[in-house]
Every structure is written in C-alpha cells, then in structure tokens.
C-alpha cells in the first residue's frame, strides 16, 4: 500500500476485506436502498506497507454468493488522509469433503490494452484454494497457485489512494476507524442506475479475402468489467478500482465478418453508482466512498470498426479448413466500457474465449492465421487472418 507520493505507508493501517451482495441483489435494489457489506477479513499493514488478508472460513460468504456462485469482494482501507479501494471477485464452490473454497472466475492470461491505461487481468486457479490477498509492485492480479495442501491462492494488488483522497467528505475525516472496527457496520446505498452501456466482449480481424470470421457470446459467458471508485463522488474524481465479472443471460451470435474487416463486438451491461459508508452509534455515518460498478447484463449487439493489430505468429491454413478457438487467455480492452467517458476514467472489459465465448475462422481459400503474441493454438491474444 502506497501513499499519494508512491511511498509505502507505515505499519498499523487497518485493511478490511468486505464481501458485497451479489449483482443479483444489487440489480434488484431500488435507488436509495442500502445493503450491508460483509466484513470477512482484516489485517494491519507492516512497516513496508504490505499486508495479508485471509478468509479463514470461506463458508461465511455463501449468503452473498450470486446464482452463479460468484462472490464480489472489496479491499478497503480508510486512513486520515486517504482511502483505498480495490474490487475483485471469486467463485465459491464446495469440495467433496463439504468445505468451501474460493477460486478465480475467468481465464488466466495476460491482459492486452488497446488504447493505453491499465487493465486488470483476472486469473483462474485450476485447483480450488482458499483466498488470500497481499501486495506487490504491480497493479494487476496474478496467481501463485500452490499445488500442495494447504493450497493458497494469492491475489496481488498494489493499493494506491483514490485520486481525491485529500478532499474526502468532511464526515469521513476524524478519528481512526481502527478503534471503531468492532462496533461499526458498513453499508452501500444505490444512488443511480445508469442506462445500459456498451462493452467490448469480442473482436475479429480478417486482413485478407475469402476468410469468414465469426464470434459467439453465449449464455453463461463471463466478462470482467472495470469499476470506478472515488472518495468524493465528484465529477472527475473517479479512478479505476478493480473489476467484477458479469455473466451473460442470453446468447449473441455476432454477424459474420468477411474480407478486410477489423471489428470490435459489443454488448450492453448495466452500471450503477453506490455510496458506501460505515456507521457507529458514536460517530453516525462516516467514511463515505463512491463506487460505479456493473450489476447486470443487458444484451444487445453492436459492431464497431477498429484498427488491425500486428500479428506475426503465423500458420497457413488450407482452403476448406475451419479453426475454432474455444479457450484462451483473456484479452483486456482498457477502454472497453463506454461509460468511461461519463465517469472520467477508462474502464476495462475482458472476455476470454471459453466454451461460452468462441471465435471461428472459415478458410474459403488458403490463408494464414496469425497471433499477435503467440501461435493460434497457444495464447495469441489477437487472431488475424492474413493473405
């Protein structure tokens, strides 16, 4: 955890891991309704600013898991001069012995930014493991999947203060939250439900003729969408604060793309603005924070132009061949959420090619299929059909 100058904070700062109610609940809430945030772990920073959060009993988050067993988390730390927030999610599952574990929810792999700014990557942990959180020097999440019991999944997050940390709501300053921790409860109130916003979920590049490309985003496909956070809620004060995954409730078969086309495929999702705050009898409401996060899939489809990427990991495919990419490392579009222009910060979107999101290439003539960062059957990131 670092302060606004980039220096690590000292020892003794309280960090709390909250569980948010699922998107099922959040999307059903009316404006001005509040829900309680569930504290599931806490820790204090060490002298180097690092900390470890561990969910000792993942079963405690079962009541807030979504219908798809997703649990949304927020790492939060409120200090006199700054607030820190980071959102991510995990999947809750039950082992054969009946114990609960929290695992990654989307495909592993490196994110790819199409337009600058930082995107987050969400990893998958093939072996169900308990959740643990810590810090690194990188503002991305990565896994260190252990193979032996007791296995631990580590989420690395660099926590920097929200951009307006020194202009907090006046109610939020004052005594340290540490002393009130035992008695406080934290809530989140829905302030605004935005109209559905377009989000990039896929793409297609055919830089030649006689190749047909197709992309299917099926029911159950998951996109990891960026979240904006602010200490004041004022326009221009938002910064990127992690991601949450939203699952498609419909199947979209985007239009086939033919010769010399470079397209982004978009569908729409619903975002909402929440005001989070904590409460004690002694202090009333304090520690206000604002979060703009995705809460539902809205559907629809839109196809937009984009430039061709460079792709040099090439393999010839003979006429009559069909290549299908079902699973791969996910791609992050740093500006993949069009709501970003409204909140003043680019929000990322990420979709992996899973069994629920698939890319197809039909070679009507002999052509090459090239990956931008690896061969097509490996981790290509961008797949481009070329002459």
């Amino acid at each position, binding site marked *: 955890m670092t302060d606004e100058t980039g220096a690590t904070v000292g020892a003794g700062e309280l960090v709390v891991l909250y569980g948010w109610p699922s998107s099922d609940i959040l999307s059903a809430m009316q404006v001005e309704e509040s829900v309680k945030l569930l504290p599931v772990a806490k820790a204090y920073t060490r002298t180097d600013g690092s900390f470890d959060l561990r969910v000792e009993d993942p079963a405690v988050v079962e009541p807030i898991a979504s219908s798809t067993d997703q649990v949304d988390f927020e790492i939060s730390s409120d200090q006199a001069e700054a607030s820190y927030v980071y959102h991510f999610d995990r999947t809750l599952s039950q082992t054969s012995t009946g114990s609960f574990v929290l695992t990654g929810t989307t495909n592993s792999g490196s994110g790819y930014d199409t337009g600058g700014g930082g995107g987050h990557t969400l990893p998958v942990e093939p072996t169900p493991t308990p959740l643990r959180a810590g810090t690194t020097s990188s503002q991305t999440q990565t896994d260190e999947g252990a193979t032996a019991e007791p296995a631990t999944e580590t989420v690395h997050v660099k926590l920097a203060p929200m951009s307006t940390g020194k202009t907090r709501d006046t109610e939020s300053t004052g005594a340290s939250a540490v002393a009130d921790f035992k008695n406080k409860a934290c809530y989140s109130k829905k302030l605004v439900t935005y109209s559905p916003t377009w989000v990039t979920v896929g793409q297609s590049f055919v830089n030649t003729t006689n190749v047909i490309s197709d992309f299917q985003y099926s029911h159950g496909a998951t996109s990891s969408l960026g979240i904006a956070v602010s200490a004041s809620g004022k326009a221009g004060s938002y910064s990127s604060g992690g991601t949450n995954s939203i699952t498609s409730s419909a199947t979209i078969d985007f239009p086939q793309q033919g010769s010399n086309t470079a397209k982004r495929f978009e569908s729409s999702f619903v975002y909402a603005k929440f005001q989070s705050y904590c409460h004690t009898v002694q202090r009333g409401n304090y520690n206000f924070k604002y979060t703009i996060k995705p809460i539902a899939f809205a559907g629809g489809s839109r196809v937009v132009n984009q430039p061709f990427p460079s792709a040099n990991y090439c*393999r010839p495919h*003979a006429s009559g061949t*069909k290549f299908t990419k*079902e699973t*791969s490392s996910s791609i992050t579009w740093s500006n993949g959420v069009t709501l970003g222009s409204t909140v003043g910060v680019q929000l990322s979107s990420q979709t992996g090619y899973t069994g629920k999101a698939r890319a197809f290439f039909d070679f009507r003539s002999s052509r090459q299929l090239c990956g931008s960062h690896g061969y097509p059957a490996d*981790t290509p990131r961008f797949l481009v059909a070329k002459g």
Partner: protein
Amino acid sequence: MTLRQRPRYTYRLVFAIAVTSALAGCTPPILDGPLSTGSGSNELCFIPAPEGEGMRAVGEVVRNEGDAPVTIQQIGLTDPNDLVLEDTYVVPLTEDDRFSFGVISTEAEDQQIQAHWAKAVEPKDFVLEPGASVNIVAAVSINPDITEGTASSLEVRYTDGRSDFLSKTTTTLLMTNGSCF
C-alpha cells in the same frame, strides 16, 4: 522431398515396435513434462489435400520450457478414430522465423510452405534445446469411403535422459470428406 515420400509401412513398423516395447513393461511416460503444447481448447476441421498436392498435414508448435535439452522420440495421434497417421516430421523454428505449419499439403505449391518443408527432419532423436520451439507435423489421411476421421490431439513422446514424457497438444482434429462449413 524424400522425407515426405517415405512409404507408409515404415512408420507403421516403427509404431508397432514402439507399442510392443511399451506393452513389454516400460515405465509409462510422465504426462507433465517440460514441453508446452499450446493452451486452451481448439478445434481444427480440414479436408483432404487436393489432387496433386500429396497428403494433408497438420502442425502444431511445441516449446521446451525446461532447463535441459529434450530428445523427441515419437509424434503420434491421441485417440485416433478413422484418422490414419501416415508420416511425421519436425521443423525447427527460430525467433526470427515464426512461420509454422497449420493445415497444409505435403506437396503444396506455395513457396513459403515449400521453404518450410525443406527444413523438415525426422522426429526421432531430434534434440530440442531449452527455450527452443519446433513445429511438429503429422501427415494424415482418411479412407475415401468414410465420412470423417478424428483425433483428440497430436502428441509427442520425448525424454530428458532421465524420464520419458508424453505431451498432448490442445487442438482436436477432424478430417472430413465432406465440408467443414
């Protein structure tokens, strides 16, 4: 091009000997070896090579992620069903040349493909250094009177001198006498 014109029985004889050896009590190969063979789940549907272009061949790229050289022993098909393995090859790759075979013909007219074929060698005893990649290639066929043949992947048997390994690629193969579209 003599390499690609080896008679079919040569490969089948080698394969029969290998299978016999395996059944004779050799230690099963380790599945989690140092070769990376792709990621995710991919499907490749293709049709036989046109008349005059030899056989259909499919390729994948494998990379030695270990810190010691490995020696390839054999390339094969995993769980083949009416898909016949006719011959196998490896084509060394360099960092400067990222072109590799996907679905091609053994006697394709394309000059870039021909140039790549010119670098092909027999898989057996091919040594893959740490960090190096190689294009593994299998020439395959199906009987003209059946609809399709399948295999769940290409696979590579190799050794680091201490242990024997078996790595499978991540692409399922379907060869059809019909259409893939």
